Each structure stands twice: as C-alpha cells, then as structure tokens.
C-alpha cells in the first residue's frame, strides 16, 4: 500500500526537487561568492576552497563603500513610503468604498488608467519638477531621499486605493449604519471601525509597498547621485553593473545582508500576503 503511494508521489518529488535545485542554484553561488576572499564570482570549485568573511567586513569598514548609509537610506525611504502610502491609500479607499459623491466613478477609472501609464517615461518631466523644488528647498528636491519619497507617494493613491477598496467593499454596510445610529461620526467610523478591521490588509499593503520601494531601481539611480545618499539597490548595482570592473564578492555579501530583512518579513507574513494575492482571483 505505502509502496504504491510512494510511486504515485514520485513525480511530485521529482518535480519539486528539480525546482529546488533551480531555486537553490543562484542562491548557493551567491553565498559561495560572498565567502570567497578573492572577490570574483565563485568559479573554479563548487565547494569553498578558501573561507573568509572579508567581503562582509569590507562592507562595514571600507570608507569607499558606505554600506550602512545605503541600508539606512533604503530602510528609511521604504518604511516612510509604506506608512504614508497606506495612510493615503486607506483614506482614499474608504471614501471610494463608503461614500457616494460626484466624480467617484470617473475618479476611480482615471486612477486606474493613469496607473497603467508607463510612468517612468515621464522621468524628464519629474526631473524638471524635482529640479525646481531643489532650487527652493534642497532637502526635498533632486538628490535627496526625501525628494524621492515625494515621488514614490505620488503614485500611492493609484496603486493602493483600488487594492484596499476591494477589501473594504467586503465589509458589510450594516456595520457602519449601526455605528451611525449609535451616534458615531464619519471620522470615528473610519478610525474605530474600519482601521482595526482592515489592519491585516493594511499590513499586507504596507509590506508590499515596502518591498516594492526597496526594489525600486530606475528612479533611485537617476535621482540619488551622491555616494552617501544612494539606496542599497543603486549602491550595490554599481559594483557589478559596470561594463568593465565587476566586484562580485562585496556585492554578494551586501545582497545577502540586504535580503535577510525582506525574506524574514515576507516569510513571517506569508499567510496574509498569499491571502491578499489570491483574494482577487477567487472573487473573480
């Protein structure tokens, strides 16, 4: 009995193992590379010949590699963007889901359409705007992480309002009606009923926004020119993105360290994130 089950399950294991190998391959190579003191990408041997943490210590000691600043910039900008964009998105979604007003339908459709526009091609226009802001308030303009933050949250309403509205729509109307009868004002309904009820979804939205911002490369590389002000994505890309000199050792070490917080966040919120991903599908 158990034997036939084993045979029937064989293809499942074979498939899963092939994919495990496929998934593990680059991860394994990057770990090996990070431990290889010569700085090249692991090449001659599949097993580590020399073992050293010099690539890791280099990140924190080499004055030419302000890795800590990069990490700090990325974490600050990603957290700030996540929190702000969820606040804006939640408030917008609440209005779109719970209220009826002129321009509601057009507003929703416009949000969606503009969002579909390949927006970073309007880079030159964004650049001009940021240049003007820089001339007046340097801390908010070109080259500062707070300027980049302004651009990121500019798109927040479009991305999050739709996502969150879908969830808010599932909360029964009776709930806010009964609250209103009990004498609750609109802000109270928002803060005391919706916010707590939606908090898992808000958390997922925040995490997705955090990951998205952490990953963002094009805008960040264009706007953050100073070495100190770069994000991890831009900083690490400089090691290996060039045409000639490629420094894989520190890149690998830096990538691993930068990945750890994201992987932890992702795995710990896995259940919710998957729920959020599939909710749209199952409903449709």
């Amino acid at each position, binding site marked *: 009995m158990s034997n036939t089950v084993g045979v029937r399950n064989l293809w499942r294991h074979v498939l899963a193992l092939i994919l495990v190998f496929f998934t593990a391959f680059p991860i394994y190579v990057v770990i090996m590379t990070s431990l290889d003191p010569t700085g090249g*990408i692991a090449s001659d041997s599949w097993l580590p010949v020399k073992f050293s943490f010099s690539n890791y210590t280099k990140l924190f000691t080499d004055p030419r590699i302000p890795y800590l600043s990069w990490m700090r910039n990325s974490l600050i900008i990603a957290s700030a963007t996540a929190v702000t964009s969820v606040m804006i998105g939640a408030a917008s979604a609440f209005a779109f889901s719970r209220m009826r007003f002129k321009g509601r339908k057009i507003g929703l459709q416009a949000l969606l359409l503009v969002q*579909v526009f390949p927006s970073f091609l309007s880079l030159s226009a964004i650049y001009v705007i940021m240049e003007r802001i820089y001339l007046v308030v340097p801390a908010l303009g070109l080259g500062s992480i707070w300027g980049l933050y302004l651009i990121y949250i500019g798109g927040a309403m479009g991305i999050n309002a739709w996502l969150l509205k879908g969830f808010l729509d599932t909360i029964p109307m009776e709930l806010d009606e009964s609250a209103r009868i009990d004498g609750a004002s609109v802000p109270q309904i928002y803060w005391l009923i919706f916010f707590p009820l939606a908090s898992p979804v808000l958390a997922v939205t925040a995490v997705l926004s955090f990951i998205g911002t952490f990953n963002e490369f094009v805008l960040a590389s264009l706007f953050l020119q100073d070495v100190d002000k770069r994000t991890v*994505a831009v900083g690490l890309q400089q090691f290996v993105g060039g045409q000639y000199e490629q420094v894989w050792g520190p890149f690998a070490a830096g990538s691993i360290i930068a990945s750890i917080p994201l992987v932890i966040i992702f795995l710990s919120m896995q259940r919710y994130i998957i729920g959020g991903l599939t909710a749209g599908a199952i409903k449709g």
Partner: protein
Amino acid sequence: MIYALVGLRGSIALLLKFAILGATDALLIWIISVALGKNSIILAVVLIAATAALNITYLVKGAVPLKFLIVGILFFSIFVVTPTGYTIIMSGFNYKTGNEIDKPSAIAGVLANGLSTDESGTAYDMFLGKTPSGQWAAILEDQVTHSVVFATTDGVQPIGESEITRNSDGIITAANGIKQLSQDEQATADSEITTLRFPLGDNYFASPQGAEVALRMTQVMSYDKTSDTFTNSQTGEVFVDNGKGNFANKADLAQVLDPGWRSFSAFDNYKQLIMDKKVRDPFIGVFVWTIAFAFLSVGTTFAVGMLLALALQNQLRFRRFYRGFLILPYAIPSFMSILIWRGLFNKDYGAINHLLHTHIGWFDGPWTARAAVILVNLWLGFPYMYLISSGALQSIPSELEEAASIDGATGKQAFIAVKLPLLVQILGPLLISSFAFNFNNFNIIYLLTGGGPTDESTGAIAGATDILISYAYKTAFGSTFQNLGLSSAISMMMFFIVGTLSMYTLKKSRVLETL
C-alpha cells in the same frame, strides 16, 4: 453612546486638527516664501493652490469625501498626472537632439553659426580698451599689411603712428584715446568682448577672438523678422521655416540649418513609427519580441507554477520544506536576483558555463540572450504563479472531480476537461495583469542584458532583447542621440495597449459594473 466616550470628538479633536493643519500650513507657507524669494513663480503658485485647497477642505463643513481624498489627490496630481500630461503633449512635438530649445534661442543660434571670415582670412592684432566715455574701442593692426586703424562700435578711423606706443617687439602697449582694461576687468568682461563687433564697412566687421586678436568677418546668414526667413548673403540661398522645427533651404528642403527648435508636429512621431522604415523596422521588431516575451513569461511561469501547485496539493512528505523553500525567489529583492543571474551567465567566469563545461557568450547571441531572459524570468515568477494557482485549486469544490470520476473519467481527463478550464477562468484576470506587468517589465531587461546584444555596426538603438519600455527609455535618454518626442509616442502606444488590456480585464471581471 460609546463613540462619544472613545472617539475623537469635541475640543480635543478640534485642537488636534488645528495643530496638524497649522503645522502643515506653516511648512507650506515657509516654502512658498522661499520660492517667491528665489523667483520660482510656478512652484509658488502650485503650492499656494495646494495650501488653499487643503485649508478650504478641512475648515469648511461638508464635502466629507474630499477630506479623505485631498492629500492623495494633491500628490497624485503633482507627481503623476502632471508628468503624464507632459509626456502626452511631448509626443506631439519634434523634440530631439538638435531640436531642444525654443525658436528665439534657435534663431540666435543660427545667427551665431552664420558668420564667415573673408576669403583671405584677414586677422588683426588688437589693442583693446575703452574710450574716456566708456565705449569699447580697439586699435586693429592687420597682421599682413600692418595697416593700423582705430575702431569703435560705430566704425573705423585712420590713426597715425605718432598716437601709438609700441614696445621693443613692435606690440602696441598704449594709444591715445583708449584706456586698456585691467586684468580683472578683462576677465569679467570676457563674454562681452567676444560678442563685440567693430564695423569695417562692406558688411564686414572685426570680431574679437579673445583679448588680443580679431578676425575680419561678415554675417552671412541674416534673419528677416517680417518674412521669418534666413538669407545667405554669399550664395543667395533663402531658408524658410519648414514647420518641423528647422529652417530649410527653399530650393532643397532636405538642407536644414542647425540648431532647430522643438516645434509642434502633431502626429509626425506616430507617423514615423508606422511609415518611416528606419524607425518602423526596429519598432516592429521590438514590438513582436515584447509580445512574445510577455506571453512566454506568463506561459512558462504559469505552467511551472501550476504543475507545482498540483504536485503539492495533497499530503506529501517534505511538503512544508518545498513550499517554504520554493517561494524564496519571490521574497528575495528582485534587482539582486537579476544581477546575480547576470553574473551566472557571464562568459568567462559564470557558473552556468562552468556547470555545462562550455564557453558560451550567452548575452552575445540574440537567441541565447532571449532564452536567458525567459529563464531568469521563470526563476523570478514561478513562485507567484504557484501561490495563486494553489489558492485557486483549493477554491474548486472537490465534488466536481468526484462527479467526473463517477462519470468514468480518469484523473488526468478530469483535470484537463473540468479543472483546467475552471482554473484559467478563475485566474484569468491575474494572468492578464501578469501579462501587463511583464509587458512593462523594465528591470529584468535593463539589469540583465541592457537590451543587448545590439548590432552596433548599423547604429541601431534597439537590441535583441529590448522590450518597448526599455526601447523607449533608450530612445529618450540615450547617450548620443535623444528623441524625447518619439519616445513619448512609443509610451503612448504602450499605454494604449496595456490600458485596453486592463479595461478589458475589468469589464470581464465585472469590477466596473459594481462601482
């Protein structure tokens, strides 16, 4: 009742509201005052409008929805709608390298370029200074004939040798009626000096080249304001505004003057994409590959993800491990994975060549590069497809399968005939949005292959793996030639395609009806 106790109501809420609004106002007003101080009028106007909108919204009773929307709307308008509108407008302009400035600047540029020396290239040694009344003046000595004149911006007069002082090398060091500039004065007046013109008669003038030499020049190109034409006084050619941002020779319209200006060109950029062979052929190549890339990406990731979901749907040993490990590519920051894959594919030290004992330049050939892009995208994308597939699988009632097996279907038949169509229907909207995502998947192309390999011998911009978005990016921000107008037109085409797809999906999923 309870809400009156817990809720933010009454004076505390009011105080909080005023505190936040007040702080925001203070910040905005400070920025506005700085902006006004620095003559940044547009920014100041935008900020004043924003401040007014904020205060009206929150201080006036009613308009509750706006209270929830206003902050988002303000950011959205400034950082998304405005740039998008700019792109749309630019797609109707001839705006590229050589046509970047406005028309008055272009006219000035053509005038500056339209100077010519006389045939023998007459040059003068110049003693430059100012007359007692502060007018620019110079003693010009012809380097060949050594005739000397006194020149002002009004014209020239002869000057006797007795009025000039020379040093032992014969260089003029002083002259009556001219006071030489000090070094400092000379340095600050540098740009003014090069624009000086001392008329010599016969349409010629002496044009200082630095502080000590002048050339005998004539304005060959002259601009006539009323007819808006340039005339070349030597050849007699007339250049007219060709309506496309350049002055073109009336007799031979292909001959245009440099620089041009960015001019309104209506649908010329779109026409170029469809009619101009040099633009159209690469565009079509890129377009086809973009579609193929998006289809292949969705197809391969969905196939693998679905297979995995089927494999892991029942109890299986190590299932937890498989699940946890196989979603790692989704959790690792994608820009890092892509760059790591770039290293793995390296010809000389990449682990893939090492594994296969080959020495292949994966990114050098168009087909190997395309295959590499698809493979890397499979690695990045199959966990997502697995997650949504397994979610969808669980939502299909098991009775369906049981019914099929009672009717005599084998497991495989039941899956293909009953489950798969249902799954595709359920996942349809997500597959389409994944298609749209890959259609615009800039990062993988830019970071993995940079769009290459590119046939540089033909001067092509588009590479074998370029998709529309990376092609548009290169067109707009290329290193040697930039064509913002054309790039905007490409963006508009992409917007049209992806927008249609999205609207179709929404119609299909009936989201818009329930709005």
